[in-house]
């Protein structure tokens, strides 16, 4: 893979999109840096609308979306820098995968002898089936063919709408590795998914969209920490859970304690104070801490909280 220069910038500024009286996306602002960003949200939250706005296939009703400073809508030239994998399964059924990817390469102006088509097919592990018509492909194979067509020109920005749909577990792992490989080469990857585990495994950052608004953005562990109006939960395994619990019970930042089956569960309303004071309290109690793990930092927990709020 060659490194594209310069570093791509994607900027979404106060963007809104409405259809008549229906507001699909409302006042959303974020920027994308190289790496993988996951777009999360319940059905109908506006994820696809946001992706299509970023990919230049929708005109913002208000605000702006730019790639490298250029508005994405109405400027086909941006597709030299942007690759899009749409959610809809539709592909040209009468083309083989090789023809489909070749068409994409030709429309990107790539010379046919460059080997880009074969490389793209190889990347998505479709080389063996490349000469079969897309009509005969399974959903997961079509998905991979779309990915190959989107990355044939080695785009600096890759936008994928539910890219793991229809893939079996092995293909998912492979696709995750591919996205990571792209991100490591300095690409901007933005993908939507309703499967939290996938986002958690691949994305460094998340954008959580709820009812057309951006509910949160950034590192999801960081987001969780910033949710100060909800206590954080930790699980501790120590040399003496009861002794540590006595010490913790006297501290104002601790809002709940439970001794359960060889572990100590702690709830705190002040994440910073808790992590700052815990080592000192353990030392005073003569307790060794073997394990300290956040109990509710999973992306699912973050997502549930933001959606319910």
């Amino acid at each position, binding site marked *: 893979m060659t490194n594209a220069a310069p570093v791509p910038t994607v900027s979404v500024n106060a963007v809104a999109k409405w259809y008549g009286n229906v507001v699909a996306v409302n006042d959303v602002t974020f920027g994308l840096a190289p790496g993988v960003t996951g777009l999360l949200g319940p059905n109908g939250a506006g994820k696809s609308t946001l992706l299509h706005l970023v990919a230049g*296939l929708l*005109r913002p009703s208000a605000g702006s979306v730019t790639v490298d400073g250029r508005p994405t809508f109405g400027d086909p030239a941006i597709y030299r820098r942007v690759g899009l994998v749409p959610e809809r399964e539709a592909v040209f059924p009468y083309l083989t995968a090789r023809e489909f990817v070749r068409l994409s390469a030709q429309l990107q102006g790539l010379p046919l002898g460059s080997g880009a088509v074969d490389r793209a097919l190889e990347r998505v592990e479709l080389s063996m089936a490349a000469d079969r018509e897309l009509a005969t492909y399974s959903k997961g194979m079509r998905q991979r063919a779309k990915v190959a067509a989107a990355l044939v020109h080695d785009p600096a920005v890759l936008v994928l709408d539910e890219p793991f749909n229809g893939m079996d577990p092995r293909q998912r792992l492979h696709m995750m590795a591919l996205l990571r490989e792209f991100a490591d080469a300095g690409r901007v990857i933005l993908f939507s998914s309703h499967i939290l585990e996938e986002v958690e495994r691949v994305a460094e950052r998340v954008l959580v969209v709820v009812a057309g608004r951006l509910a949160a953005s950034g590192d999801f562990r960081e987001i969780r920490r910033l949710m100060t109006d909800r206590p954080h939960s930790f699980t501790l395994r120590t040399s003496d859970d009861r002794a540590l619990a006595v010490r913790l019970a006297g501290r104002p930042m601790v809002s709940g304690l439970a001794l359960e089956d060889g572990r100590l569960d702690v709830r705190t309303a002040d994440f910073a104070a808790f992590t700052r004071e815990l080592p000192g309290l353990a030392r005073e109690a003569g307790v060794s801490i073997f394990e300290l793990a956040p109990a509710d930092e999973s992306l699912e927990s973050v997502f549930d909280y933001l959606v319910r709020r």
Partner: protein
Amino acid sequence: MLGASVLGPLVDVTIRGLLGRRRILLVGLLAMSPVGVALILVLGGGSGASAEDLRQLYDSLVMTTVVPLVALILGTTAIGAEIDDGTVIHLLARPVGRSWIVLAKMLVAAISGVMLCGTAALLTGLLLVGLDAPRLVLGMLGGTAVAVIAYTAVFVTLSVWSGRALIVGLGYVLLWEGFIASFFSGTRLLSIREYGLAAAAGIAGPDAGSLAGDVAPAIGLALAALVTVVAFGLGARRLARFEISDAG
């Protein structure tokens, strides 16, 4: 942004898309219907068919029904079907000028329409008058080509503007071309059918007979060219501002 080099791949995928759809069979049957009628006339007619029979068949069947309907199906299938099934996104998300996409769709729809309807016009003419009136048959061929090109340009553009292009186009063919423009002479300057007939009469010369209408051949040709160019411009302009419908 890429230029003429993308025309070949766009034309190629459009041709395969047209041939890959079942409605192309319907178009073929429809286009060849005048040949069937001519065969019936030839086989059933005792004293043989006349040039006037051919002119009437051309006017009332070929130009009033077959050409506009064939152009309607080809024009709306060329890009409308891709918009309907979502595959158009694979063309739009590429650094390709939208005018090249519209041009490719119009070229394929027009050339396949001219081939189908032109073949039908030629065979119909040869069956009915043989080589007795070669200018009339050539005129029919030319008039058909002029009408098909203008119609397909209009219908490709209609597909980009409206999700109901087939219904709107059918309404236009039946109401405007089939009824209003046929019965009200004042509207003939706004009828693609009349442009085709004018071109046919111009080429047929002395053989034109009843094909010669209210529109002069040069005017008909110029107006057909104008309609085609305006339709292309409007189609390209619309596709440049085209938004993908979505959900979620």
